[in-house]
């Protein structure tokens, strides 16, 4: 266990970023999002949740895959280089780390997504415990422990200090790099902080959110439920929930003509959009109800059915905070348990 | 000198809120004017003086103080040039240039007659404070 004074954090960031890219929550134009650290960045580790999750570091909102150029009448294809350098992702909360584990299931299972894999291999995650969980948090429902998030390094804020514990070899390497700024610490303060967090967790409004009704093979029963016909109604079909979500992994592939060649890139897509999976014959989900149902069925039924029971929701609550129509996964879960209870 | 002359005619336009170039020289203002005989510069000529940037002469003329501010010309001008307002603007310039305060605020409420156009009242003040 190491520690560093809060006031020395800037030195720490400067040090880390001197040798590699440092992704860290930065406040810009009033909002906190992950960004690449620079000396004049306004680092903001106090905001519990960045607007977009940290998944961007491994799965950027858009990335070029390859470029096609033409030399006279011949075509040349150049693959985009994979991530080749280590980078540090700092201040990641338990939910986002769990989100990365969900994405691993998608991108690292065969066939492996090499772009994702390379970033994942080169990324060093410095996790940060959630000192002040918020009302929309329900990560514990999905088995996340915000008191001790599992990164290469786990950190805690307590009083004047940031406590620092390396968990992996990558973590040790980073600790060694920063050794000049870190001092030894005992675990007592951290234990105390963990207790304090636990106390808050038990008081969270969603503390007792239950997934009971979602266990087992719920496919047919849930799919056919009449509830969807009401639940989807406020939905505006925007992509806010999907884009702030740490686990949403759908993307679209597109070509862009730069004038000197064509770039094939992928970018996040949202199953809420009416043109999602649009094909020549039309769309296989033709109504917003179907699209809405798809999102939640995927997170709570289809994904766990194919991934050893792992839900593709991590309870970060970003969609709860951000949905313009105040509809969200918690309301969906609650509506179904109410139905189960009333039966 | 040239500049100050010009600025005065610009001032007349600004104060009166009229555009002298709209005048089509029909003379309806002069035809309507009850003080026409006593005027050295006739109502329809006011406009030309402003266009020609000769506010100097306008400032010196008798017409400025002969005009009753009855606004018959303003009312009847087919082109909305409002010679009466030009006269009044010229008057204002003369008075402003003299400096000093001309009206005590307390006097105003007593002088206001509901049926009387406000503009007329103000013009009248200026005129009799000469």
């Amino acid at each position, binding site marked *: 266990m190491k520690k560093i004074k809060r006031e020395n954090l800037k030195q720490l960031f400067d040090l880390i970023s001197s040798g590699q890219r440092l992704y860290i929550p930065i406040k810009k134009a009033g909002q906190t999002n992950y960004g690449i650290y620079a000396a004049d960045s306004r680092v903001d580790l106090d905001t519990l949740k960045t607007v977009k999750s940290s998944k961007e570091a491994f799965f950027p909102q858009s990335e070029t895959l390859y470029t096609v150029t033409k030399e006279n009448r011949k075509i040349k294809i150049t693959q985009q280089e994979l991530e080749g350098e280590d980078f540090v992702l700092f201040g990641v909360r338990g939910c986002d780390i769990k989100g990365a584990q969900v994405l691993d299931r998608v991108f690292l299972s065969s066939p492996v997504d090499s772009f994702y894999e390379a970033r994942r291999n080169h990324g060093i995650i410095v996790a940060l415990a959630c000192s002040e969980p918020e009302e929309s948090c329900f990560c514990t429902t999905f088995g996340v422990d915000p008191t001790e998030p599992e990164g290469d390094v786990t950190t805690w804020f307590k009083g004047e200090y940031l406590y620092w514990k390396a968990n992996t070899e990558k973590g040790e390497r980073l600790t060694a790099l920063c050794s000049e700024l870190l001092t030894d610490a005992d675990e007592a303060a951290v234990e105390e902080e963990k207790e304090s967090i636990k106390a808050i967790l038990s008081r969270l409004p969603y503390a007792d959110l239950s997934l009971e009704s979602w266990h087992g093979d719920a496919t047919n029963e849930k799919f056919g439920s009449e509830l969807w016909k009401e639940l989807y109604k406020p939905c505006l079909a925007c992509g806010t929930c999907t884009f702030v979500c740490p686990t949403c992994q759908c993307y679209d592939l597109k070509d*862009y003509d*730069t*004038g*000197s060649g064509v*770039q094939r890139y992928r970018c996040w897509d949202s199953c809420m959009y009416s043109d999602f999976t649009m094909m020549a014959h039309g769309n296989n989900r033709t109504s917003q109800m179907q699209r809405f149902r798809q999102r939640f069925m995927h997170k709570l039924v289809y994904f766990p059915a194919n991934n050893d029971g792992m839900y593709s929701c991590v309870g970060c609550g970003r969609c709860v905070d951000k949905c313009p129509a105040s509809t969200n996964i918690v309301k969906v879960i609650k509506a179904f348990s109410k139905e189960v209870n009333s039966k | 000198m040239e500049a100050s002359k010009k600025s005065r005619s610009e001032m007349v336009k600004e104060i009166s809120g009229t555009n002298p170039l709209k005048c089509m020289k029909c003379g309806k203002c002069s035809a309507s004017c009850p003080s026409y005989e006593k005027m050295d510069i006739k109502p329809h000529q006011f406009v030309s003086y402003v266009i020609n940037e000769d506010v100097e002469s306008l400032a010196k003329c008798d017409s400025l103080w002969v005009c009753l501010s009855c606004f018959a010309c303003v009312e009847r001008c087919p082109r909305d040039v409002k010679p009466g307002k030009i006269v009044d603007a010229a008057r204002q310039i003369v008075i402003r240039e003299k400096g000093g305060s001309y009206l005590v605020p307390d006097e105003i409420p007593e002088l206001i007659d509901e049926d009387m156009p406000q503009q007329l009242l103000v013009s009248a003040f200026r005129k009799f404070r000469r």
Partner: protein
Amino acid sequence: MSLTNEEFRPKIVAFCCNWCSYAGADLAGSSRLSYPADVKIIRVPCSCRVNPMFILRAFEKGADGVIICGCHPGDCHYSTGNYYARRRMTLLFSMLDYVGIERGRTRVEWVSAAEGVKFSQTMNEFVETVRSLGKNVRLGDLRCKN
């Protein structure tokens, strides 16, 4: 600065109405009134055919300046087209000013079929203005800028 203003050749897109300005450009040509080759003309039936999307597209793909030419107000072949275009372009360009695109990169000019001289003069002026502003770095897709 590796590029001096002398060497910088801006990309200029000119949308010209078929009935007036395009003919004006033809007249400039037949009168041998030169203007920089940086100007490339796109023929449209009327200035009201110019969609803001076209203008932003040009900037996206690397144009340094966009100019719209149409018939003089009152002379539109379709009576009213350039009146609509005038409002649209006034508002659009005002918006581009507002988001920080240099004002000199956009322009609307009315050029009649008889105004070959005006066409050439306008283009000369416009190219000069854009050249003095340098390369368009604020608006455009980075992928198109190599």
